[in-house]
């Protein structure tokens, strides 16, 4: 299908963009990488009256490391983050997830901020942000707000960004020493959205797990922290039995959605396998990174 008509705005500063958002509110959509939004427009599922293209806002690009956090501008292209040595060294979980996002051509245009603002519950980056308690920096009429990941994802394709606010930056904590990470997913084909995916980060020091973070994607309308599993893992030594139990705890209360690719029961079963395998991979990764 062809895109429906819309008014097109191409602000060059965040302030301009905020003014436009404030003016048009729900009638406006923000165009970042376009890899999620343009298909919706082409299928005429999204019908914004105004499209605000933020690709020309230079201040939204760039990465910096400040106070143990990696601040990534919202318009940072996924491939730039993928190729970044800084990301590989300081946010290894993000580095692990990025290659799984679609295909290279998608990552040429897709952005870190765009993906997180779109908040597809089967996408990889929301699980990474949730696992690491990333911070979302938005700018609106009333100034800047910093929103923790736990409060960012509200529902299906819905975030706590107010209509007049623009996501400007996402801050990820730098990984501690002895961290091991993995992003493990089950997908129908290479590059597809996850049926179920798991972002795992843990510290493995002296053979003992601490600071385990597990966030599942594809199991709800938002990414889900497996808090019960995280509690179980704290202070324990990795073992198949431990990971089995963690998988059980991570999945027993899940009520995943059903669709053409799998029933709710199926996703729950797969989630358990993903948790087992993801934990094993993260533990291995911790040993390798040493």
């Amino acid at each position, binding site marked *: 299908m062809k895109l429906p008509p819309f008014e097109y705005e191409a602000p060059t500063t965040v302030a301009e963009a905020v003014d436009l958002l404030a003016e048009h509110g729900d009638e406006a959509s923000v165009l970042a990488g376009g890899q999620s939004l343009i*298909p919706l427009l082409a299928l005429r599922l999204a019908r914004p009256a105004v499209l605000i293209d933020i690709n020309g806002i230079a201040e939204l690009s760039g990465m910096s490391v400040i106070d143990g956090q990696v601040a990534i501008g919202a318009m940072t292209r996924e491939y730039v983050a993928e190729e970044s040595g800084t990301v590989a060294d300081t946010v290894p979980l993000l580095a692990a997830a990025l290659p799984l996002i679609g295909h290279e051509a998608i990552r040429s245009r897709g952005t870190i901020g765009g993906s997180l603002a779109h908040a597809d519950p089967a996408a990889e980056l929301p699980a990474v942000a949730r696992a690491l308690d990333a911070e979302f920096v938005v700018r609106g009429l009333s100034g800047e707000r910093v929103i923790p990941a736990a409060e960012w994802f509200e529902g299906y394709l819905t975030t706590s960004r107010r209509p007049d606010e623009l996501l400007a930056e996402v801050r990820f904590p730098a990984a501690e020493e002895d961290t091991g990470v993995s992003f493990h997913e089950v997908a129908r084909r290479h590059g597809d959205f996850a049926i179920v995916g798991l972002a795992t980060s843990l510290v493995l020091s002296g053979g003992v797990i601490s600071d385990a973070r597990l966030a599942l994607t594809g199991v709800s309308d938002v990414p889900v922290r497996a808090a019960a599993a995280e509690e179980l893992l704290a202070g324990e030594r990795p073992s198949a039995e431990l990971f089995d139990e963690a998988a059980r705890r991570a999945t027993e209360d899940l009520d995943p959605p059903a669709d053409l690719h799998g029933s709710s029961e199926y996703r729950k079963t797969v989630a358990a396998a993903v948790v087992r395998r993801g934990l094993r991979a993260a533990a291995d990764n911790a040993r390798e990174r040493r």
Partner: protein
Amino acid sequence: MTDITVRINGAARTGSPEARTTLADFLRDDLELTGTHVGCEHGVCGACTVILDGRAVRSCLMLAVQAAGREVTTIEGLAPDGELSALQQAMWDSHSFQCGYCTPGFVMQATAFLGDHPDASEQEIREALSGNICRCTGYQSIIDGVLLAAQRNRTLRNRELS
């Protein structure tokens, strides 16, 4: 309507597309560069792949106006003066394609990929091309074409080095 200028295959091209016109449609309809094909218009099949500022992108997932001031290479730009690129030649030699509809997307994606990963393994090549759909070939002949091109490029580089 916005007036834009885009460098396409080395030449400055101008047009006045509506904001909603995709880059794919701008190339095909406004500039009559019909080599870039449209297979799904929702970014899955890869037939519309072109190279923008050195990176393979899906032209159906960009607005034409977003390409203003940029460098775009389409399939028509790979063989200036009629001399096929090493990849095109290798694909011809390998019987890579049948109906040809997916071909421009594969050629552009593989061109970009080989440029960055000249020594990729078969598995890496398959993964890199897994975002391009072909209905005719079962992919093996396409992969063979890419592998052959990579091998020939290596031979050339080795010759240049020695």
